[in-house]
């Protein structure tokens, strides 16, 4: 455990060193001090471990094959290093034996020079040729078959959660005992997979043609909340708690008569009054499941507050204003985003993801917390998964995976090529040609909801 902390410290300081070196000369005291510090940290690590291999795989850093889970204070440094390594097509840095200060200096120089090169990886590798203690390797692509396997696991976990959610509602209606242990286990699985395969899971929430909106909505809000919570730096345990609270956020709807819930036309005033009671009913339903505990209490708070709004203009109307719980603010955003982008009984036509995002931005500071929303937007990207986009190559595609380093350069699944023929290929919009120009860029987004596009065919 101690070694992992050291590795996180090394990566964080390495990022600071490289960022500082982009601004100051290598002999500037700010840089030399950092070189000394990083050298010391690496050598301290090498005393015990002999080798330190830092790998960037997908969006995650690994130290000697163990994935690093860092706290929020390291977030910007890790993001910076991930972006810079990707720019240089570099995925691995290995330090071994004992490192001397001039060697780190050479590495920094090589790193900076490679940033201006058309062939950054080879430039860097050549610059480091004389060094025995520091080596680099190319960025590896995540294997396609591994992704396929993971997709199956994600799909199974997602549908397990939906099926559980359905069973839960039925059990509550039938006044049967509810298995909270199982809810915890299901959300644990979701948390694990979101930590490893966030994009695949977000893809499942982007499919909007599911039959049973209520159950899928609960799971989608849970997935989006966990993913957002992860961006905020919540611990695994907290993510589980958040995921469960999000899964239960609409549980009060069990008390809303089905004829109202499934009404295809606009609600009457009286029907609205009933709908608006579901947050309160959520508190009651949850706290009647079993004896109170911290998880149920937190879930009850979220159930009560998820329509309250950041500025208390939502419902239920409250006499005294107390700040919304952090989890409630997260779930509010996830709930609004998923509701807007879904086809519901009372709102058949969903909004395209980018439009929903724009509306959320309009609601920033009024209905939703601006700070949390900022993290959410950074998570889903300019073009959220499921966006229908036209590329400058005249290819039409669906955003398949967002790119946290280049938010406007997601992975896109091409569905029609430039000749108007149906096709199926995935492209990464961050890929460049030999001259360093991006191969493809998005020029238009389209409202897929106007057409009968079945996203499940591409995202599942």
């Amino acid at each position, binding site marked *: 455990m101690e070694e992992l902390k050291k590795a996180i410290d090394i990566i964080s300081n390495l990022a600071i060193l490289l960022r500082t070196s982009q601004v100051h000369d290598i002999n500037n005291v700010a840089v030399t001090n950092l070189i000394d510090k990083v050298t010391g940290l690496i050598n301290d690590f090498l005393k015990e471990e002999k080798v330190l291999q830092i790998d960037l795989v997908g969006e995650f850093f690994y130290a000697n094959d163990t994935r690093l889970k860092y706290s929020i204070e390291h977030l910007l440094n890790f993001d910076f290093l991930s972006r810079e390594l990707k720019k240089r097509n570099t995925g691995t840095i290995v330090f071994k034996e004992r490192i001397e200060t001039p060697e780190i200096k050479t590495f920094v120089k090589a790193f900076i020079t490679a940033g201006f090169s058309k062939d950054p990886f080879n430039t860097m590798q050549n610059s480091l040729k004389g060094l025995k203690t520091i080596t680099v390797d190319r960025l590896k692509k995540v294997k396609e078959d591994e992704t396929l396997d993971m997709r199956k696991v994600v799909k199974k976990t997602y549908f*397990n959660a939906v099926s559980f959610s359905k069973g839960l509602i039925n059990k509550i209606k039938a006044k049967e005992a509810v298995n909270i242990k199982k809810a915890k286990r299901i959300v644990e699985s979701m948390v694990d997979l979101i930590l490893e395969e966030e994009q695949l899971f977000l893809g499942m929430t982007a499919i909007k043609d599911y039959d049973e909106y209520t159950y899928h909505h609960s799971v989608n809000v849970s997935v989006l909340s966990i993913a957002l919570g992860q961006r905020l*730096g919540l611990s695994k345990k907290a993510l589980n708690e958040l995921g469960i609270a999000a899964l239960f956020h609409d549980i009060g709807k069990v008390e809303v008569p089905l004829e109202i819930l499934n009404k295809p036309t606009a609600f009457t005033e009286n029907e609205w009054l009933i709908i608006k009671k579901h947050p309160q009913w959520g508190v009651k339903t949850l706290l009647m499941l079993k004896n*109170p505990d911290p998880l149920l209490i937190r879930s009850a708070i979220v159930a009560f507050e998820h329509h309250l709004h950041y500025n208390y203009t939502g419902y239920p109307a409250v*006499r005294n204003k107390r700040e919304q719980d952090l989890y409630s603010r997260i779930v509010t955003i996830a709930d609004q985003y998923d509701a807007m982008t879904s086809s519901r009984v009372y709102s058949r036509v969903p909004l395209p993801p980018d439009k929903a995002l724009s509306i959320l931005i309009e609601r920033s500071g009024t209905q939703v917390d601006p700070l949390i929303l*900022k993290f959410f937007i950074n998570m889903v990207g300019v073009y959220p998964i499921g966006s229908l986009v*036209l590329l400058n190559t005249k290819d039409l595609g669906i955003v398949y995976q967002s790119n946290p380093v280049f938010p406007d350069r997601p992975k896109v699944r091409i569905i*029609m090529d430039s000749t*108007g023929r149906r096709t199926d290929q995935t492209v990464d919009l961050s890929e460049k040609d030999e001259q360093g120009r991006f191969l493809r860029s998005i020029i*238009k987004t*389209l409202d897929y909801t106007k057409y009968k596009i079945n996203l499940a065919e591409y995202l599942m």
Partner: protein
Amino acid sequence: MSELSAIKDLLQTLLKTKKLIRMYPENNPMYIKAVNDMYEKFEEAFQQTSGDIAFQIRQYEILFQDEQVYQNPEKSDNLALFFFKDGIRELKFLRGLNKEELEEFLKIISIDEKELVDDDIVTLMWEKDFQNIKYVVDESVLTEDEDYERRATETLMENINSPDELLRVYRAAMESDTVRTPQIAPVTEEDLRALMKEFEKDSAPKLSKLVYIFSEILHQESDKKEFEEILSIIKSVLEYSIKVAEFESAIEILKLIKSAIDDGDIAADIKPHMRKIIEHAGSRAVIKSIGEVIDRIEIEEKIVLEYIEQLERNAIQPLIEILGELKNIRARKIIIDGLALLGRKDMQSLIKGLSDERWYVVRNIVYILRLIGDRRAVEYLLKTIKHPDMRVRREVIKTLGEIKAPQAVTILKDHLNDPDPQIRIATVRALGSIHTESAKRLLLQRINTKDFLHRTLEEKKEYFEVLSSWRDEEVTDFLVKTLKRNSLFNRSKNFENRACAAYALGLMGSKEHLNILKKYIDSGNPLLREYVRNAIMRISGTRMER
């Protein structure tokens, strides 16, 4: 030792350690040794094996490299079944296993299964996020509906995208205007600082927020059935607040209910239900829970008293019950002070505690009555004065004195002859506190008895000290007379009386008595001489030469 033997040995040690961990607290040397021994066994096993140690878990057996290393057909206390039932199918210990992780793992497997109400083993292991203990779980135990995924997928794929539709989309895309996409502002250092503040705020307990939500609901709800359901939830949350020692929230709940009872907007027929919550807050079950908490955890007295202050008279009897059960002195003091608060509201309930079989409870109740200081208690105290335990009797006498109950004088008279000197002294002091003419007379009479001469100096001194508090002519004359009194018989005992008279005159502090005292300044009796000198010194404020 072969690899397989080492693994079998490891599992046997694991079973033994599991028992020891369950048996001893963490700071016990046996516990510490068990963890250390287990860790050593793992180190030995890692040396014997080529890599990590992976166990395959079956229902009634554990395998290592396909060889059975544990087997147990029983349904209880079965290590294989313990993991298997929650879906664990493989358990792997990596070579980097450290002692902290191992200890956490041992704690998990040592939990009594009956205690695992809200979490299973997988959840507990998951929450620990072990780096060197990995497990494979069969997630099928989580599947509610085996066929759900297939059905949902088939439904989704029913409407496969038609080439014509895609072409229509494509053409529309070519013709449509460019849609403006939202700009993304990157997360800044300032955002991270703001987020850190959010996390700090988030660490505050959540119960208070829930109570706030209850208050909002109570003021919005008009349906009687809903009201009753919410009240029943509030009741269970109240119990929970006590269990987790969050007395602040429990107080908030009681205040909320009381203000709702006083609220004219809330329907009158709901209010009896609300009162039941207040009653429940002082019920035997809740008070027992309070006792368990304050006996175990050091909680600020003020906050517990604030809770007790909110209770009704029904809490008195349960509080008396736990008073006799608490082990911790600090906890007992809290309950005593709490009973003093509630006893003012209903002394009759408190007085019932005087009939408790446990002498120490009776003594505490008498003490509480003293704290309350209400003379209505005298009648009951006088009945308790005959309690078989001397410690209770003494407490009653003291209390009667402090309550200044004049009607107690007659009863106290008998206790001046109690065989126990401490009771006698307490009685004298009580009479001094009561300070009536009859009390004074009783003391004077007693001093004048022949028997008094043979009391200890300490007891005599008590009499004279108490007597000096009257400071009237009768007492002064009596003291002067006693000081002067010579006797041919029991001379030394008489000198004690005279010395005590000098002592009392000194306490009275009147300069008028200096002359008479000075006459005995050089008395041949050292005790009288010493007491006289001290009395003069006390009155005149000057030191006497010896």
